[in-house]
């Protein structure tokens, strides 16, 4: 049987081939695509078992579950691609609860005509990212849609994890007086992606900061879990959106200091050039923590000991404010609000 099959089966031409509708039709081509690209890249026992789901042991404690969709353009950018972003982003969403991420799922919606080589590259990056993080991708799905009905590849992921006993981080937990800590320099992901957008290409050596933060969060929990009020990764909408969200959920205001916010000069310059506010620009490997004042120094020290938190800094504190304003002392010595972004962030015209 196998012999016959082999004779009829053409090898997956990863170098030159394109995804076509048969790759999503449930037939042999689809099996070949999944085997040849995804299983090869993600390789683990759960996938090898070949079921439509994965069964695994669950440690005691509270489970965390998250889901996310990735639609980035361009798909490849300095420092990563949609695949590493999907793995890191999902791990981070779990980690922000203070949880240990355990397993991921990944579902692909692929546009007909998408190069197999690009798909393989994306899958390999995902495999690497998940191996490095120690969080396997244990189940997945593939669909192919007609040309024009998607933008290359969309990836949906889910992640599960477990929160250690005694820890309960909540979005409404910030209290006046709490310290606000950022884990490192902001705006790198957004600027790296924008630098490669069609019509906008410009030369910078900024790479995306995309990274899995669960090691860093574990160190923070270890250093002062009891003082940790909440953590959030400032992805879309940037630091500004994250602080406003927390302010509104916790019914507090924030006072931050522009000079204290870590930012690379290239990011500041690129934002200046594009007329963007770096506080609105996305990050993929940074976190914001709100910490009770008595725990701030210990947690900051633990962060600075971790490679992903080397540039961590206290950027301000929570205050009581019924309007939930995020206010900033500017580097210029004046005061202003830091607001959410309205609509899409667009470079200005003049």
């Amino acid at each position, binding site marked *: 049987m196998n012999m016959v099959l082999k004779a009829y089966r053409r090898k997956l031409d990863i170098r030159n081939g394109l995804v076509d509708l048969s790759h999503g039709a449930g037939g042999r081509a689809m099996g070949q695509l999944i085997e040849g690209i995804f299983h090869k890249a993600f390789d683990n026992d759960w996938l090898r078992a070949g079921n439509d789901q994965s069964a695994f042991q669950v440690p005691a404690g509270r489970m965390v579950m998250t889901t996310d969709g990735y639609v980035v353009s361009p798909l490849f950018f300095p420092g990563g691609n949609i695949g590493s972003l999907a793995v890191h982003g999902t791990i981070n969403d779990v980690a922000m609860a203070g949880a240990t991420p355990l397993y991921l799922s990944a579902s692909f919606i692929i546009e007909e005509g998408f190069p197999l080589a690009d798909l393989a590259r994306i899958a390999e990056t995902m495999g690497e990212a998940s191996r490095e993080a120690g969080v396997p991708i244990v189940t997945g799905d593939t669909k192919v849609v007609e040309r024009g009905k998607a933008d290359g590849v969309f990836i949906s992921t889910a992640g599960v994890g477990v929160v250690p006993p005694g820890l309960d981080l909540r979005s409404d937990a910030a209290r006046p007086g709490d310290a606000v800590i950022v884990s490192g320099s902001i705006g790198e992901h957004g600027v790296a992606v924008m630098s490669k957008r069609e019509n906008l290409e410009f030369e910078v050596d900024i790479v995306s900061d995309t990274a899995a933060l669960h090691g860093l969060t574990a160190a923070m929990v270890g250093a002062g879990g009891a003082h940790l009020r909440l953590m959030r990764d400032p992805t879309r909408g940037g630091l500004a959106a994250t602080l406003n969200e927390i302010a509104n959920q916790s019914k507090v205001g924030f006072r931050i200091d522009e000079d204290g916010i870590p930012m690379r000069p290239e990011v500041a310059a690129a934002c200046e050039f594009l007329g963007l506010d770096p506080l609105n620009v996305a990050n993929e490997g940074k976190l914001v923590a709100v910490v009770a004042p008595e725990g701030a120094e210990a947690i900051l020290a633990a962060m600075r000991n971790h490679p992903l938190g080397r540039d961590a800094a206290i950027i301000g504190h929570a205050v009581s404010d019924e309007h939930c304003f995020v206010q900033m002392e500017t580097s210029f010595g004046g005061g202003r609000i830091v607001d959410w972004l309205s609509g899409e962030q667009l470079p200005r*015209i003049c």
Partner: protein
Amino acid sequence: MKYIDEYRDGRLAKDIARQITALADPDRSYHFMEFCGGHTHAISRYGLEDLLPANVRMIHGPGCPVCVLPIGRIDAAISLAMRPEITLCTYGDLMRVPGSEGSSLLKAKAAGADIRMVYSTLDAIRIAEQEPQREVVFFAIGFETTTPPTAMAIKMAIARDLPNFSVFCNHVLTPAAIQNILESPDVRKLGTVKIDGFIGPAHVSTVIGTEPYEFFAEEFRKPVVVAGFEPLDVIQAILMLVKQVNDGRHEVENQYIRAVTIFGNEKAQAEVATYFELKESFEWRGLGQVPYSALRLRAQYARFDAEKRFDLETPAASDNPACECGAILRGVKRPADCKLFGTVCTPDTPMGSCMVSSEGACAAHWTYGRFREKAKEANAGRAVA
């Protein structure tokens, strides 16, 4: 980056602010209008008002090209974009500007219009080249700074013999508008606002120079300081204005000597003059009809003029009656004086144009400064209690 830091030095700023406070006569007040939205943005974003003494007040002028575009022109652009053969190329910040009855280019795009966001006129040229079966129209707006690139695009279209490229021209002129703020029938209606001097936009003057303001300063006896957009540029310009007022001078001064000259970029001016001529009158949102304040394509380039080519009418349409944009653009009122500010009208749901572009006075105040009102309210409440 070093280049930028120098113009954001907080210590230097405080030093200049101290000089302003020392020089500002406590027995009088100083009202300066920054004409350009770029300055409005810098003032709000860096919290510059906090550094100024209470008797030096900044008035936000009409210098945001998105804000001053009348509803009728947006409606016209939408009707153009809805034609099946047309691809409308536009700068991103025009997408959300409200037209009549809550319409916008963004909504037209969702409804199927072929509208593409571009970052430069050259993108539009490229689309016209790549898609010869489409009629590509560039939605041209902006002050003197953005006009030369539009002229360049027409030049390129001629050189490349592009039959499918045209321009919907909405280019407006700074000096005409500044003049209108001080003398027009509307001034009598809306009331005048005290203006003791103007900050002129440096980027406009890199093209036109400082010379066009000479007549104006002389005629209206108002000082004009042409300034850059970094916060230090702005605060230095304020200091220069305070000095002029104190001395009773009304001169055109150039704060931005690092790029602005008296006569500007004469090559760019010549390029613009080749393709464009003055329009007798143009409607500005908030200012009404302003004579000789806009450009149109010269007759011999009519084939690049989208209005002629597609028989485009500009429908009459008016703003939400509660919207105070007009008074705000003239400096007669402040954003928070508008009943809709922050309630019905926010950057997410803009009712008037001043709320649309981040450089509009209402948006800048909402985005960066609205805590000041709340603080004032709170203080007033405390004083009463």
